[in-house]
């Protein structure tokens, strides 16, 4: 993995050696985009947070890793925790923050002791705390905050609500966290992996990072691969890789479909395997789930919908009421009593959910349903309710 090749501390040293604007410029030149899924340009987010007025600013590491089929952040936190904290410290340099928070998924509680130990060691080595690395006035510390087991709390504004001790529900946006974030202060929320890559970029330079990937999706990315393949696991691969290439790498050549981006992502049928995995084509936060030839795609869609129904926060109508209607539709398809007219109506409802839901959860909840109806029509129609 690339992260293993980076000299510890080199990124922070490089960041402290230049003015904050240069740090931002370097990230900007690298073209780094958020590794949490949405792919928002990291330098722009940091720049907005830096420009936003406020004496207290926060750097939050989103370690909620709740997307079905992702487990790469867990590996990073286990093996490269120092690097994540170093990345957060670099972000603090860039935006002028003094406080950092890691929002750790409840299921990763077992990692907490390890993370606290790493933080403690960093404090002892003057890599956190006051006057970091001897730079006068540069104070920054990080605390770990546990999630409570909710997928939607990975959405950045719901995450902030949860941190504030409220019910984990997404906020109205705008305003965005970069000006009204944690406790109303400017806040940048980034994925675990994003911070790690920021360290690499500061250590090795923007050109080194850009040598791989595509023009709009530069660099590497970690992929969490699971499902019907011979070599599941975490892969460090360049963005832009085609689905077919990825399948060859992981031993899943005979796949019938691949779910890219987890439950919130898209279900890619075989005929689209030449498409590339990149923000401009098939975006992903890293989850790749391979479906072998024997998989029932209706069950796949059902499984994902059940997940969304369970995880919806329930505040907005399209998501709360829409997803159960789609699930009922799947059950009707299974029994063979869903008319084509109603199926069309449900697809149209799915579009409404994509357009009118308040947050990314509801906006992506219908996508598997829609892609299965579109791409596996023959397979899902004409059923009679048997197995």
């Amino acid at each position: 993995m690339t992260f293993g090749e980076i000299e510890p501390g080199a990124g922070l040293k490089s960041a402290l050696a230049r003015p904050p604007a240069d740090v931002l410029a370097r990230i900007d030149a690298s073209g780094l985009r958020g590794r949490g899924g949405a792919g928002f340009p990291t330098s722009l987010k940091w720049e907005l947070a830096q420009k936003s007025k406020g004496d207290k600013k926060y750097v939050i590491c989103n370690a909620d890793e709740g997307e079905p089929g992702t487990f790469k952040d867990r590996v990073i936190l286990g093996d490269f925790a120092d690097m994540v904290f170093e990345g957060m410290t670099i972000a603090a340099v860039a935006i002028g923050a003094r406080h950092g928070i890691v929002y750790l998924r409840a299921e990763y509680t077992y990692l907490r002791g390890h993370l606290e130990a790493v933080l403690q060691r960093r404090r002892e080595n003057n890599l956190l705390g006051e006057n970091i690395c001897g730079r006068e006035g540069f104070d920054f510390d990080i605390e770990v905050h546990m999630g409570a087991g909710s997928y939607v709390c990975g959405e950045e504004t719901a995450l902030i609500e949860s941190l504030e001790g409220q019910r984990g529900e997404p906020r109205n946006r705008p305003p965005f966290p970069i000006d009204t974030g944690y406790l109303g202060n400017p806040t940048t929320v980034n994925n675990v992996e994003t911070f790690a890559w920021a360290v690499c970029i500061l250590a090795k330079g923007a050109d080194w990072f850009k040598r791989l990937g595509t023009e709009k999706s530069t660099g590497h990315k970690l992929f969490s691969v699971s499902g019907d393949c011979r070599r599941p696991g975490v892969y460090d691969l360049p963005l832009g890789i085609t689905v077919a290439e990825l399948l060859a790498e992981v031993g899943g050549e005979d796949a019938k479909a691949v779910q890219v981006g987890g439950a919130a992502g898209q279900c890619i049928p075989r005929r689209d395997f030449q498409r590339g995995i990149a923000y401009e084509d098939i975006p992903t936060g890293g989850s790749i789930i391979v479906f072998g030839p024997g998989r029932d795609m209706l069950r796949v869609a059902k499984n994902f919908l059940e997940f969304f129904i369970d995880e919806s926060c329930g505040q907005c109508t399209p998501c709360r009421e829409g997803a159960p209607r789609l699930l009922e539709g799947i059950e009707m398809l299974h029994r063979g009593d869903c008319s084509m007219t109603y199926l069309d109506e449900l697809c149209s409802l799915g579009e409404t959910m994509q357009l009118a839901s308040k947050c990314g959860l509801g906006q992506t909840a219908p996508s598997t349903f829609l892609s299965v109806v579109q791409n596996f029509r023959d397979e899902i129609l004409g059923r009679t309710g048997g197995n």
Partner: protein
Amino acid sequence: MAKPTPTAGVSTRAPASQRSRTAEMLQHAKAMGKTIEVAIDGSPIAVPLGTSILEAAGQLGIRIPTLCYHEDLCLAGVCRVCVVEIEGQRTLQAACSYPISSPINVKTHTSKVRRARRHIIDLLLSSHVGECYTCSRNQSCELRELAAEYGVDFFRFGHVQKPRYEIDASSHAVVRDMNKCVLCRRCIRTCIDLQEVGVLEALYRGNRSKVGTFLDRPLADVVCINCGQCINRCPTGALRANDPTDEVWDAIDDPRKHVLIQTAPSPRAAIGECFGLEPGHAVTFELNTALRRCGFDRVFDTDFSADLTIIEEGVELLLRLKRALVDGDASVALPQFTSCSPGWVKYVEHFYPERLAHLSSAKSPQQMFGALLKTYYAQINELDPRDIVTVALMPCSAKKFECNRPEMCASGHKDIDYGLTTRELAKMIHEAGIDLLKLPKSGFDDPFGTATGSGVIFGATGGVMEAALRTVVELVTGLKIEKLFDHADVIPVRGFEGIRYAELPISQIGPVPELVAHLFDNWDFLKDVTLKVGVAHGTANAKRVMEDIKAGGRFSQCHFIEFMACPGGCLGGGGQPSPTSPAIRAARA
């Protein structure tokens, strides 16, 4: 009425998700005074930075449907009925909660928008248990109106028939039928943000989410103060008052029963709204005729007992002052608090039990009237109190709770048997086929004398205070005072919108009148005393005053403070007609 901004030191219990971040930004941005040019459906308009799309569209006369939005409440942006299309944006945006910060081009009724709204209404109906003809809100339901507006003529995504939740009728004031709830969360925002009581919150998540109480306990078991503000803001029939009209009809139909009704001023000012009148037309005397035609044996004016309450409270205040100033008794609970708002009384019981001694010991006008009717009135009319049924028309749902308090029967009989809200009485009049607006006028029955008229201002906020002070000043100075506040120094209290403070120097004293001669020898102890008084309405404001007292602030120096649980006082009570808005409440005054 604008909600006061939380003052330093007072924590609001509102979860940030329901506090309005957008609105905070709005105020901030508007203060910067920058304007932005936008186009809505092709019409250009320049609005201050931070104005919501909904507001801007409203200025252009473009109506965008809303459901979770309410003028009195902070923004939620949850129903999504108000979505609009913004050119260049992938998703639709909720007009109510989208602050304009750049020149955008908005379209409010494209096919995407219309389809989305239609779907959203269909979805709401798919899980809404209820048939309009059996619903108390069928004439004023915002969901039904939306369905009509969007031409819903069949249940596209089905229509659930089986109730999922038990109806919670445990409270004397508020009945909750969550089967009809559309999860707009207005009640939550009302209870947490507007009233700052914090009884209701969203429980569970996804399609299992529902509005509930602490540990999902029945409403009667939690700290609900029965103010009914949540009822007034619920768009559907999910919340309603606990309705005793059947019992009232039974009493009327029973020839042995002598059924008496008293009417408070605020419902008289608002009941016309239930008969198609614009807010602000009192129908007091037509109502008297209607009540007699319904079958009530006597119709009384609560103003009568309001005068009694005021004298009681005024004299009690003088006694407390005497004990404090003459006897030097440091344990006297000052400031004295008014006790006529039963929501406020319950609020103190739950949240400031250590201050109970401050409450005036006087009964509210409703209860005083009831007690008199079951004792003195029964005696002079040679009636058995057991045959008397006392009904009170009140603007208030907490009055239902108050009349059912076990201690409210000192005579051995329940002071008041039934409390009716404005809405419920309107229903009785409709049911009796009476055309209220066409009726001849008639006066009140005269129980024991004539009222003075000070009770008329009881319903407006500051009314009790003004009347009680006038009584005090008249007793002490021997002067007749028409406009009390002409004599007072009304001092604006900064950071306390919706809260008033006044000082009233007593520069001369007169002889002790007959009425209170057994209690006071002279008024010397009041010479050159400056009476300090306060008025707060809405429990959110009340809380600020209570915290100020706790912190030893200005209000801790007060002698007398009037508190009312409802924003806008009784005119905005929880039993008044729906809908409610700042403009409607102002018109009723």
